[in-house]
């Protein structure tokens, strides 16, 4: 199941001993993709997140925003229909958060469903997408172009 869903984490979860390129390629190696395709796909997706020039860097040489972009690249590299983003902006400053959001939006525009959990009120209110509020494990609100709830 994990292969049909791309996951983006709050703390990035990149492999520290692998370069950016290898981290993204790893997601493909795991599913037994053939090596020729791996190179092409990885470079494509790094281009999309604008990190091609950092392909040889290690995660700890990157800023938080860049690391999150690598993480996103890894999650979309095998073209999953759905991406789950668990507070992808939680560890980032507002400026960088918007970079990430723009990127997720672009991915969304290409036809991938992006499911994102967040407590960032500004983002929710600005981006105006479908909002689902969950309390105690139950859906309490589901709006097509919702805002961040007052009581949450």
């Amino acid at each position, binding site marked *: 199941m*994990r*292969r049909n869903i791309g*996951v983006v*984490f709050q703390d990035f*979860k*990149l*492999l*520290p*001993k692998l370069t950016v390129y290898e981290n993204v390629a*790893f*997601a493909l*190696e*795991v*599913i*037994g993709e*053939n090596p020729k395709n791996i190179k092409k796909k990885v470079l494509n997706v790094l281009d999309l997140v604008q990190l091609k020039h950092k392909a040889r860097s290690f995660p700890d040489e990157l800023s938080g925003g860049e690391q999150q972009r690598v993480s996103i690249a*890894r999650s979309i590299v095998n073209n999953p229909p759905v991406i789950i983003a668990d507070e992808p902006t939680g560890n980032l400053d507002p400026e960088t958060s918007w970079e990430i959001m723009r990127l997720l939006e672009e991915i969304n525009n290409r036809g991938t469903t992006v499911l994102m959990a967040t407590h960032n009120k500004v983002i929710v209110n600005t981006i105006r997408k479908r909002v689902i509020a969950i309390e105690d494990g139950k859906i309490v609100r589901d709006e097509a172009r919702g805002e961040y709830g007052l009581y949450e």
Partner: protein
Amino acid sequence: MVFMNKTLGRHLREAVKSLGRNAWMSIASISAVTVTLLLVGTFLVIMMNLNNIASNIEEDVEITVLIDRTADQNAQNQLESKLKNLEKVENVQFSSKDQELEKLIKSFGEKGESFKLFEQDNPLNDVFIVKTKVPEDTPVVAEEIKKMRYVENVQYAEETVKKLFEVVNVSRNIGIVLIIGLVFTAMFLISNTIKITIFARRREIEIMKLVGATNWFIRWPFFLEGLFLGALGAVIPITVLVVSYNSLVNIAVPYIQGSFVELLPFSPFVFQISAILLLIGVLIGIWGSLMSVRKFLKV
């Protein structure tokens, strides 16, 4: 197992990389295997030689029939055919008293020279050497032969053989217990050392699983790493064994020649033992590594 052939190269690379990255841990595991296999190998060599000696002796259980000095050629022939007709007897061989003396002198090696004095006036008897079909029948047949005419006496080494078998059996059992104990110790040591290397990579394994790696995809590199650890650990014991057994054979054989103790010949034996050691090493390594990954795969 699923992606093994496609990604075997990757797994091999990972395994070798990991061996190098955790060089000290690898050396610790390898030495654990080395020590164990050295001991196991030594025991195996001793046990298999004991076994060999025991079965040689079992085959050599024979009855020496001392022929009465008064018996003439005719009586001797009669006795021989009588012996041959016994149901449980496999074969009968004649050995003159001169031949017997020669054998005696030979068996004492250099000290046997002093017996040459007896060549003038040989006090020994002519003998028939009787072999039974089954070693266990020896006492019965011996009793039967004793009653025949022209038989002065009957000699056989049943008691000694029995005792020897007991000793061999006991030492074999002790050896097996020790070997099993040693193997388990080594497995424990290896699984611990690998566990420590994995512990450092726990996060890595967790991420691998989150990205969608199957358990076998994660396991393979560790599996191979364990295999290499075991195989590398077997190198030194095998070398030591080959070299020392070779010199043992070279040194000991001239001394023990002619006695009932006999060493197994170098050629097939040492290679069999080497193969066994390599196999044990590899199994220990694989088992140790798989045991320690198991825990970390439950994410």
